[in-house]
């Protein structure tokens, strides 16, 4: 997942190297804990589309999803797991390496 020996592209994680999922991880990392509706607004997605991406990230063990109620209103909160944190850091590092390669080429 975080092979740094070869070309930066070879180490990219298929789960994370995806625009929406990278956005989800970035927002969740910064927010520490983020609500489903906030993610949907920030990423300009439909509920169904966001749910699919969240399922992929949850299945990969990168996020935790917690469902609950506030009053009568159902709310879904997403937090990053330690693996999710590491995966995001690795992806950012890969992107920086790619930029460095492009600039020195």
């Amino acid at each position: 997942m975080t092979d740094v020996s070869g070309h930066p592209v070879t180490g990219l994680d298929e789960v994370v190297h995806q625009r929406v999922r990278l956005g989800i991880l970035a927002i969740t990392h910064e927010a520490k804990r983020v609500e489903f509706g906030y993610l949907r607004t920030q990423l300009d997605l439909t509920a169904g589309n966001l749910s699919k991406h969240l399922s992929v990230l949850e299945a990969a063990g990168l996020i935790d999803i917690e469902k609950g109620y506030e009053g009568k209103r159902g709310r879904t909160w997403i937090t990053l797991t330690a693996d999710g944190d590491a995966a995001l850091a690795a992806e950012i590092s890969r992107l920086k390496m790619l930029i460095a390669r492009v600039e020195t080429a």
Partner: protein
Amino acid sequence: MTADAIRPGDDPRRILSEVRGLAARVRRDQRLTWVALLVLGAVTLLAVPFDAIFMQLQCQADGCTFARRGMLYYWPPALLIAYATIAWGYLRAARARGVGGRVLPYAITGAVTAVVFTAAYVAAALYFPANPPFEGGPVPFWWIVLDRLIAPWGLIGLALLVLAAVERNGPLLLFTGGYLALVLLVLPTTEGMSMMGANLRLSMAVPQLIIGIVLLAGAFGFAKARRP
């Protein structure tokens, strides 16, 4: 950030910039700077009557000595209540917006400053009457700055620096820099502002009123800047 896949031709710089943009938006949504400054400004202004009422003054022909007991009675609980209120407000607002909060390090720093102030005040009150600093002679400027730094108004500035760092809040960092310069280098917060005909209680009140107004003006400015 609406397209699904990162395509091979996508510029990593653009992707990284999008990620940073999203993170910056979250940080903006977590902030409630104006509330922090509003609470601290209100607490500062409320301290003025406490300071004046409980100040112990002893005047003789060669001058007056004073002890600001009101500061000890008022500031430790006031700081603790203020930082608890700010933390509660931050977390409530962040939750309502759908994000987690980052205010805890600030609130903890604030609580620590309350303890530091109390310890420093009590230690000074016990030690200095029998052992005046610099043998009762004129004190150097660095000593005055240190004295102002461990006073509540200086400690409020130190805690605000922590908040600016935690939030990566550039405007707050600038505001705090100006605030600390005012509190540490300009306003005689611990000596009183000598004015023609003003008594000692009033001379102590003026710097506090200025600080309170500066904090409230900051609250107003940050609240206004927040509106879309």
